[in-house]
């Protein structure tokens, strides 16, 4: 992590320069003009998934602010030179609040923030911070821990699987939490992971789900996939399935284990308020059950009542902070100790997680 920051030091320097200039975002805004909010995402908004959740979160805000806010939604923008241009164009058009909905927009969005101190930027899943640039991420691991408990309770084979997008820390930590949750119910579960290296590739996702099912997995975790492909394949095959971001229960009416939904509305609302009153300040926003951003829902009725009671209790403990998912002892895949007995991982270790816990059978690509 440290070496990363060194290597990208030029951006930090520029961020510091912006701070030194003492420019306050939002102050110079013309009175009476609506605030332009632009959302840019890499996949189609569709009916479900990551991009859908981001877009849906703006609806209640539109309802609350009415004419005082104007939302521009830009979907299906590939991460690269086109995204950089489109973000610049959105800002040139007068949008003062930019939500960059993918890790891959990081460099371009940071440049926009640097050149336009009066623009506030929220960036998904990144690690860079500037006075007008806030990276945000959901503590999905809190929700996947609960799903792991449910998965272990309904699994007959003791084999669980995950179809996952990219082997980045955000996804690795949510898989690890899934495994730890499952082990809390059945210490012998095994978890296999297939990395499809895409956020949005229905054909590949289906293929990966079928491969896991044929290996005997009977609960599948669709990890950061922006299509319901994995969910509908599992319904057909009679395996339980759950996913992140938004509910896909209509694609698996009988086998839907539940959803680790994300509700970005409270966070977006708070950030837009801060921008409007000039108090927006770049910080790392890592949001979970406590902030109401992570919302587990649509639990399957097949989950045994005693396990469901435990899940509800654990959820309350995670929300009030009396329990932490990554509490030791936790062993790595190769048997080495990852977290000592009684210790708990800090946020800085969770957001940089590049190892699997014991119980994951597939190696982590490196």
């Amino acid at each position, binding site marked *: 992590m440290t*070496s*990363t920051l060194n*290597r*990208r030091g030029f951006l930090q320097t520029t961020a510091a320069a912006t701070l030194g200039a003492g420019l306050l975002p939002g102050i110079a805004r013309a009175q009476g003009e609506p605030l332009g909010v*632009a959302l840019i995402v890499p996949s189609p908004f569709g009916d479900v998934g990551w991009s859908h959740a981001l877009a849906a979160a703006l609806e209640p805000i539109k309802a609350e602010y009415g004419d005082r806010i104007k939302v*521009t939604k*830009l*979907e*299906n923008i*590939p*991460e*690269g*030179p*086109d995204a*950089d*241009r*489109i973000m*610049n*164009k*959105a800002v*040139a*058009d007068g949008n003062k609040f930019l939500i960059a909905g993918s*890790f*891959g927009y990081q*460099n371009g969005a940071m440049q926009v923030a640097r050149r336009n101190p009066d623009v506030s930027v929220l960036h998904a899943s990144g*690690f860079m911070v500037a006075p007008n640039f806030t990276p945000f991420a959901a503590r999905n691991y809190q929700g996947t821990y609960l799903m792991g408990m449910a998965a272990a309770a309904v699994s007959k084979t003791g084999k669980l699987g995950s179809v996952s997008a*990219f*082997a*980045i*820390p955000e996804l*690795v930590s949510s898989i690890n939490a899934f495994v730890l949750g499952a082990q809390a119910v059945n210490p012998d579960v095994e978890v296999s992971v297939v990395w499809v*290296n895409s956020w949005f590739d229905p054909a590949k996702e289906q293929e990966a789900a079928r491969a896991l099912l044929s290996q005997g997995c009977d609960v599948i975790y669709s990890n950061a996939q922006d299509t319901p492909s994995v969910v509908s394949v599992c319904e057909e095959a009679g395996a339980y399935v759950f996913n992140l971001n938004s509910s896909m229960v209509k694609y698996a009416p009988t086998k839907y284990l539940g959803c680790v939904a994300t509700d970005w509305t409270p966070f977006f609302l708070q950030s837009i308020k801060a921008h409007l009153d000039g108090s927006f300040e770049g910080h790392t926003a890592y949001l979970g059950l406590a902030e109401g951003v992570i919302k587990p829902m649509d639990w399957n009725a097949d989950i045994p009542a005693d396990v469901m009671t435990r899940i509800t209790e654990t959820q309350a403990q995670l929300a009030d902070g009396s329990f932490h998912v990554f509490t030791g002892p936790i062993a790595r895949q190769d048997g080495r100790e990852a977290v000592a007995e009684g210790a708990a991982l800090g946020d800085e270790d969770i957001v940089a997680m*590049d190892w699997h816990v014991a119980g994951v059978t597939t190696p982590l*690509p*490196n």
Partner: protein
Amino acid sequence: MRLGGFRLARRDRASRKLAVVAPIAALLLSIALNLALYVAMGRNPVAVFHAMLIEPVTSWSSFSEVLLKMTPLLLIAQGLAIGFRAKVINIGAEGQFILGAIFASAIPVWFPQVTGAWVWPSMIALGGIGGMLWAIVPAIWRVRLNASEILVTLMMSLIAAQLLNFLLVGPWKDPMGFNFPQSVIFPLDATLPLLFPGTRVNVALAIALIWSVVCWFHIQRSFQGYQLIVGGLAPQAAGYAGYSQSRAIWMSLLIGGLAAGLAGAAEVAGPVGQLQRSIASGYGYSAIIVAYLGGLHPVGIVFSSLLIAILYIGGDNAMVSAGLPIAAVRVFQGSLLVCYLAAITLVRFRLIREPGGLRA
């Protein structure tokens, strides 16, 4: 060819006036059709029209992006057109583009701390070599085994995309990149110098324009260009004249591969600044359209690459400024090509009513 009660007959002599009027009529027709569509969608047609076609050429920041977008299209299309005129149909420029990008990236990936003024020119040169190497395979298959270069070049593009994937999830992945399939960010000396400060237009545009002049000389003034054209128009006449067909195939594919490789190198060393999967965004395929829109003529291609670039940038602008969904943008781009092709057909052919055709 029969169309209902009509038949297409080749005109004895294509009308010069029509050749100029037809593309303009096609442009106007597709604009009218699409404005009607936007009205039906409840959008403000004036705002869409302005964002899509006026703003890209009147605002310098948008026009500089047009020039940036035009650069790879121009480079590749000029190279492809040489082959197309000789009837060597290389549709695998996308793969040659990817190989160019990979070869150019080798320097900054292997030597991430590299500095020196020689770095970017070497990357561009390596890119050209990479594109040519990828085009050697279909050339050998065509010359030695008589395998269709259309199929082989297309399939080589699929292989190139997989090679790129392999490098990015494997050996060339940025060790500090949080496991994302992308290379290290290139150091400053491994990126192209900018032509106009404050924009992203880089020296690749100058290279593309010089390349266009070279292509013009090649077709208009060189014996070799003449041989290639004769080989395309009348293969048997070329054979009697002693022009080697296999030489024409080699030349066509190598020049096409070189141009696409240069463009790939310019893309990673230019606006992208690292090797990533999104570089394979279809320039190689769009350039085929550009080449034919430009009438396979070096001067025409300069204009057609500019037009297609304006449509891309204008489409993105319309999405941001006029709230047009991306699908409607694609419909406009597609309908323009359809109208143009219909217009061009009517320049070369005329419709004749078949006797009794109406009954059929």
